């Protein structure tokens, strides 16, 4: 116990060191759902959620907190739900939202399409703003639409969201095609050709393995943690992490408590079971359903994840994949709950301080926060340049390839 005071003091020093490090090598975060939050909360009325002012009552994200958190690049998710029609039009509206944000806050945000753009933004002290699509449903089985999204600036696509799609299995759905179908592999190859990163978060382990086998460019996990540390299907198994060095890809650790903390996984499962026992869908948010949920929560306090929980994942992932294959993908504004100390986008320095405390070197941390993410996008560009010089765009269809 005599160490407690000392540790506190140490942490202060580490926190300062973390902030200093982030000034030079800021966080390039793989996933932030601000656009969806703006759509759901205010239907894109950007005056009503002016992120130049404090939005902590409504959002995890605003410009001041991005700055405080040492964020230097952000993949803004242009997520749309997979369980309703009209994914393509909705995705375009999400893209338009990001473009409007960039136009609206030119001093804080800079549009970024390439690794070079990311470095330029860092040099200017602006947040490099990239886009990632979350789920193959956003291209409606069309490689032409995939290319259109690329042309609009989308630089990664998660192959699925929570539901299976025709050509890829999701981690949180029943196995169907058993990974990637033939068309799914064609999608991956076309992404390679365009220079759009293949994101293997949210997909089934079978899809992860098929994606790694198919992609000739480095892949990413935009927001996933380690399954060995916390057994949740959304996390990455060790055999997949082990393949990242050969592929060159990056696994960006996520903070979502119900994915990173085993106790939270178990608690969420029990809570969902409780909802179903009362005749509700487990994601129901109607007042009646929420009342049932609150009653459950009063009886069973929600387990709380901490900075240390996330650091445990990083320590393990580093053991398995190596320091060159780690990144950060907070999933802010995409999750209701966050770990203690990582409550919003201003929390990243706490994680870096924790890792400094655990003995991570400055060089290693710059790879984690910035360098790996920039490298992986640049590598995708190199592969695309080569492929485009040798191959024509594909217009293969689901019907042709998957019969």
């Amino acid at each position, binding site marked *: 116990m005599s160490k407690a005071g000392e540790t506190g003091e140490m942490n202060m020093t580490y926190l300062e060191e973390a902030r200093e490090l982030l000034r030079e090598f800021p966080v390039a975060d793989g996933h932030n759902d601000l656009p969806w939050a703006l759509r759901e909360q205010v*239907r*894109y*009325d*950007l005056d009503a959620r002016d992120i130049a002012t404090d939005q902590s009552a409504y959002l995890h994200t605003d410009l001041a907190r991005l700055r405080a958190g040492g964020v230097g690049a952000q993949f803004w998710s242009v997520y749309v739900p997979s369980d309703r*029609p*009209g994914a*393509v*039009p909705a995705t*375009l*509206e999400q*893209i*338009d*939202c990001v*473009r*409007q944000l960039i*136009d*609206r806050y030119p001093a804080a945000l800079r549009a970024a399409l390439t690794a070079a753009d990311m470095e330029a933004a860092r040099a200017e002290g602006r947040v490099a703003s990239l886009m990632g699509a979350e789920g193959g449903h956003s291209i*409606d089985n*069309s490689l*032409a*639409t995939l*290319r*259109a999204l690329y*042309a*609009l600036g989308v630089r990664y696509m998660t192959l699925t969201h929570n539901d299976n799609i025709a050509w890829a299995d999701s981690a949180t759905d029943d196995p169907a095609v058993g990974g990637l179908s033939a068309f799914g592999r064609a999608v991956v190859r076309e992404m390679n050709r365009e220079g759009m990163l293949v994101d293997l978060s949210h997909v089934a382990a079978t899809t992860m393995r098929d994606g790694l086998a198919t992609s000739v460019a480095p892949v990413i996990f935009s927001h996933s943690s380690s399954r060995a540390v916390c057994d949740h299907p959304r996390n990455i198994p060790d055999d997949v992490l082990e393949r990242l060095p050969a592929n060159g890809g990056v696994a960006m650790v996520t903070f979502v408590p119900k994915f990173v903390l085993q106790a939270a996984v178990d608690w969420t499962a029990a809570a969902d079971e409780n909802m179903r026992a009362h005749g509700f869908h487990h994601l129901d948010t109607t007042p009646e359903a929420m009342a049932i949920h609150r009653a459950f929560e009063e009886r069973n306090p929600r387990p709380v994840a901490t900075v240390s929980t996330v650091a445990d994942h990083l320590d393990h992932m580093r053991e398995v994949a190596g320091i060159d294959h780690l990144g950060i993908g907070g999933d802010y504004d995409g999750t209701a709950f966050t770990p203690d100390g990582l409550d919003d986008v201003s929390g990243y320095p706490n994680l870096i301080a924790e890792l400094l405390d655990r003995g991570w070197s400055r060089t290693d941390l710059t790879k984690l926060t910035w360098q790996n993410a920039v490298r992986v996008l640049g590598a995708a560009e190199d592969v695309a340049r080569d492929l485009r010089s040798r191959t024509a*765009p594909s217009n293969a269809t689901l019907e042709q390839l998957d019969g």
Partner: protein
Amino acid sequence: MADLQDELEATAEAGALDAPPRAETAEVTRDGTKAPPAAPERLEDLENLEGQEEDLEDPDGLEDPDGLEDPDGLEDPDGLGEAHEFLAAHPVADGYSGLPWVLRHFPSYDLELGEGGVDTDVPRMRKGHIGALFWSLHLSDRLTGERAVGATLEQLDLVRTVVHAHPEGLRLVHSAGETTDARNCGRIGILLGPAGAPSLGDSLGILRALHALGLKAVTLAGASWAGEAGLSRFGEEVVREMNRLGVLADVSGASESTVRRALAVSRAPVLCTRSAAAALRPHPVNLPDDLLAVLGEAHGLCMVPLTAEQTGPSIRDVADHLDHVRAIVGPECVGLSGTYDSGAAHPQNLADASCYPRLVAELMHRGWSQDDLALLTWGNVQRVLRTADFTARAAQDRREASTAKIGDLDG
């Protein structure tokens, strides 16, 4: 001067000096002797034209400019030397081509060498002196709702792919300046649009996304906000947002009330990408004289299509429409629209994109001045593009991107 080849050509015949530069050396001699008889003939025709219009239908020479081939066949193979010469300096900016939708169904194509299955390819566009061309993104009527947005993205991707595959001939352009640049580089400028109103998915965000992909014109027809009753409140907001972005409003095929409302609301010139005169030939897409007059007052642009259905079966019919439209809207507000590869039948001798010189020759016979012709073929489209860009820059200083929703405005 010391160039040996120049010397050789110069010694061929003294008459060569009188010949138009494009004439081939071997034919130059005959040109000197045979051209004079041809000229008075033309003058005579012009007088006839002024005198009585019925005569127009009779003389063979005029009915089919190819008829001129016989007397002048040797000096000027197709009798269109003057038209070619004029178009070389003032190419055609063509308001409508249905090529993207046709190519969608082709397993492969080569527009650079020539593509027999379509009316438009690079060699024929060069022969027709097309310098810029709107590529329509109109979809089949069966594609509506959310499918229309995805299909539009696919069409845009197709256009990008096609243009990318023909870098020697084609170049995507988005503004008046880029169009001129493309021409100065010997490329045909491809402008994206018009797209149909259903492509916007009732969303200004989607309009902005499509604009970011290069969309330059939208037809205000076929959506709940641009129907028979005219523009709804959301429809007007669409037009204002188009003004802010620099996307042109096309009202060919729009209802009369939509045309009037669009002309009133739009701060940028309004286009008709394929409308002829309803007074000469009734057709739902043709404009009656009163609407043409309003379009002219608003300084819009009426681009007359070369289709048998809308303008009639002969070159003279097309020219009649051009005369009529010019008389009403003025020479600054009339343009040309090939409407090739749109499924429409074309007037005789205007079967494909190479035929513009014949039409220009006809207009020359009718006494169109060089200035008016230059506006018709190229200048008016340039003016409209330039004004739209200017309007957009001015509007962007005043207006933020509109967040209006169709549900809020149209209930």
